[in-house]
């Protein structure tokens, strides 16, 4: 059995074991076990990556159902590896924060804390499966596997009203993914195979009306997940009502399932329909950037603001994808990873503030966090500047490369349109800066309004912040670490010019 299969399945199996043994395991122990299992999984990924030969590391391809032509087909290439590593990293940090969470260790006779860890681990398996699946239906199975656990995380551990938000999140994504399944059926019927490497390498790519309709179905499904404006309306509530770990995973990992899907099962599998849809995707992406920035300028709740800012960042990713160029693919993967790390940190931070002050609205937070909780304030400042794309931090390269790809798009995107989109997206960068500066002024600076619950970073919080900050700085200073991994694999998504 390949190490990759172990890496994918291990967290989920551990999660099931923990859930069954919740009567005898403490929440803290479960979280520690979850972190350990995730690290093991990371080791397996690294092992299979270093032993790679061929296009996909750790590739396994077993027929699973001959009746359907369904294969148990997993493999990791340069497009998926960065996302796989980011997912595992975030899951380790989430487990770490759960292990230190006082509220989940005391007053816990139902084993709820253990179940939360188990759900996180199942979500981890599902996401790793999506990032490494090379069979359309297998991809879909993993895509769906994450949804119900996430519903429980938001509905049971979220704020009051979380259940409604969770159900709305679920309905949007399930409707989208069901349409995506129809698209997969169309491809399976027209191309006669479900294997993504075969599909992306068809001698004569799928063209015509039927594949176009299939492509539309897939694009709509993934656009809900990404989310692409105007299908993003499930997102702010779900992200802000979710508990901290849920928000981190939703923003850090779940949105990437959509963008990764756009690369892996849309642009690479149906290139011709994708090229015809690219202008619409690009336009909606930029509309999302502008709309989310405007929403952020008026937002009074830190968690909702971060949620809206995610819509904008995903807009940059989709804009990059819609150029269908080599730089575009590079930008999409880079920006996805950078967003995962930065928004993960932002949501952790918002969660810590919310835990202290009971709510993440600006009024509840008060002013002058610099004075009241200096180290926490600095971390928030760091995350905000990373998110607005300060050069030298990871977020800069994501946005920079996305704009670069729009400057020189593939023939799929009309140059005039691309440059218009580029201009508007650049305006979005300015607006992003504006709203984060507003956050800094409103919450961090100003005359301090001291409160009893002003507690600075705990040791765990400092540790989590440090890990993410190091990763963000590292990618910002040495982007070649990541682009060097991505670049050789770009050919699997778009045609590479010789």
């Amino acid at each position, binding site marked *: 059995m390949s190490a990759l299969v172990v890496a994918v399945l291990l967290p989920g199996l551990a999660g099931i074991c923990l859930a069954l043994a919740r009567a005898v395991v403490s929440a803290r122990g479960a979280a520690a076990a979850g972190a350990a299992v995730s690290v093991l999984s990371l080791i397996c990924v690294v092992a299979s990556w270093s032993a790679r030969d061929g296009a996909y590391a750790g590739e396994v391809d077993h027929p699973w159902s001959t009746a359907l032509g369904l294969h148990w087909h997993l493999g990791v290439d340069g497009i998926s590896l960065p996302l796989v590593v980011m997912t595992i990293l975030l899951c380790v940090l989430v487990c770490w924060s759960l292990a230190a969470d006082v509220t989940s260790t005391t007053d816990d006779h139902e084993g709820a804390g253990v179940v939360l860890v188990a759900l996180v681990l199942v979500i981890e398996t599902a996401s790793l499966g999506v990032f490494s699946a090379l069979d359309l239906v297998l991809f879909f199975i993993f895509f*769906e596997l994450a949804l119900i656990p996430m519903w429980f995380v938001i509905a049971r551990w979220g704020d009051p009203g979380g259940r409604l938000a969770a159900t709305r999140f679920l309905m949007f994504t399930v*409707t989208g993914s069901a*349409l995506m399944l129809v698209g997969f059926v169309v491809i399976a019927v027209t191309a006669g195979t479900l294997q993504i490497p075969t599909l992306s390498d068809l001698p004569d790519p799928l063209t015509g009306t039927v594949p176009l309709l299939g492509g539309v179905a897939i694009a709509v499904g993934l656009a809900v997940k990404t989310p692409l404006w105007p299908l993003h309306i499930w997102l702010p509530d779900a992200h802000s009502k979710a508990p901290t770990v849920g928000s981190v995973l939703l923003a850090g990992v779940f949105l990437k399932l959509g963008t990764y899907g756009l690369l892996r099962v849309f642009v690479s599998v149906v290139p011709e329909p994708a090229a015809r849809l690219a202008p619409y995707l690009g336009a909606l992406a930029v509309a999302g950037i502008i709309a989310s920035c405007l929403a952020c300028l008026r937002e009074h709740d830190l968690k909702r603001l971060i949620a809206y800012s995610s819509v904008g960042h995903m807009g940059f990713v989709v804009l990059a994808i819609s150029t269908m160029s080599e730089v575009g693919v590079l930008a999409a993967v880079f920006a996805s990873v950078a967003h995962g790390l930065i928004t993960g940190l932002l949501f952790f931070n918002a969660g810590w503030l919310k835990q202290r002050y009971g709510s993440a609205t600006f009024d509840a937070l008060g002013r002058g966090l610099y004075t009241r909780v200096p180290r926490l304030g600095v971390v928030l400042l760091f995350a905000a500047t990373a998110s607005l794309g300060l050069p030298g931090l990871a977020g800069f390269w994501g946005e920079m490369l996305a704009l670069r790809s729009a400057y020189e798009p593939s023939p799929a995107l009309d140059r005039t349109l691309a440059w218009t989109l580029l201009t508007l997206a650049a305006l979005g960068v300015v607006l992003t800066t504006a709203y984060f500066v507003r956050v800094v002024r409103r919450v961090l600076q100003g005359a301090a309004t001291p409160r009893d619950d002003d507690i600075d970073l705990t040791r765990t919080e400092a540790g989590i912040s440090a890990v993410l900050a190091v990763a963000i700085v590292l990618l910002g200073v040495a982007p070649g670490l990541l682009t060097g991994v991505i670049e050789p694999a770009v050919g699997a998504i778009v045609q590479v010019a010789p």
Partner: protein
Amino acid sequence: MIDWAAVTPALILASGAIAALLVTAFHATRTWRWPAIVSTVSLLAASAVAVATGSIDRLTLVLTLVVVLGTFMMVLAAGVMDHEESMPPGELHFLLLSSAAGGCCLVVARDLVTLVVALELLSLPSIALVGLRRSDLGAARAAWTFFLLSAVSTAVTVMGVSIVYGFAGNLAYDQVATALAGSTAPARAVGAAVLLTVVGLLFKAGAVPFHVWIPDTYRGASVPVAGYLSVVSKSAALGALLVVLTTALGPVRDDWAPVVAVVAAVTMTVGNLGALGQRDAVGMLAWSSIAQAGFILAPLVGLPGTAAVAAAVSYLVVYSLANLVAFTTVAICRRRWGGTTFAHLAGLARRDPGAGLCLAFALLVLAGFPPAVIGLLTKYVVLLPPVDSGYGWLAVVMALNVAFGLVYYLRLLATVLAPPSEEVATPPPSPSPPYTVRFARAAMIAATAALVAASVYPDLLLGVL
């Protein structure tokens, strides 16, 4: 000439039915054990014979096994009612087996008159089953509704059959097909006759607009009988419909395919809408079974392709297993906690982990969500024929309904996994479950195990045809 391979299972069940009735008549006291033993023996014998002879073909064999083993499981589930004085055991087993014999005949019928007779043999005992509980006004009313609608639909079918006979001059499926293929009769008249013929089957299958009896009847009947109706009766009707449409009415496919597509789309939508408001497990499963019938009808637009047949049958098998599990758990829950509303089911997974987890898995299968991979794969399978034969809109409607259906399955799922509600957490009426409950649990676990196995090795079920 008699095709013994086809009729033997039905004959065994019919004899078993009479034996089950007689054994109670000659028993001095009220006995549940003996008729149950007789039923078990005859059902197992019938399935063994079907497997040994292979029935007519692979399709009929699978359908026969669904009917026989589905009945077997409901016989085991019916055991949980052994403490109810108002439930006569002999009659219950007699009627279950008679009706199952009708189901066996229905799926092997290759002649329109046999079809009508088998349909009646399936229906009449099941009407009596619904109203079987003595001095239960609701049950009597449910049976009465069922009876009236059933009689009307059968009458319509008979009328259709007679018109088809007028066109074809024959009643055997293969000869009807030949005659219809070369018929000079006006296409519209033939189309009307064909539609009238399938009304009876659509009624039994619970397709819209012939679904109105289902919610009332399921709620009025005892839980195992509702399970029987939703699985055995429905499967037999859908199986027979599959055979009729492929063989006898194959040549006039263009007449019925659009109608089947519309009926399928409306059925799944209406079923899901109805299920949305339910706060009672049986009511929800009743409406959900209407919606599921729509998913089984949808691939029929791809007939006569073998992929369409395989798709419909594999969906049918998976649906049947999941529904059997769901109804068995609900029956056990009713016995142990006294009701089937969501309040009674709340926290079932904590109070009774076995039943709770089985029900949860069955619900995931019905919704088509991982980890119940087999449910998802069968949803994928039934999407293929509509897309392949140009009914893309139907595929989109199906996709939307998959999403829609998740709402109520998830609601029950969350209820089952939630902490138990206070008022039901009182000591259960039957603290140490008798052996009948244990048998029902064994059946429930075995069926769930089959679903889990099929999720790991999908070819176990998807490769049957």
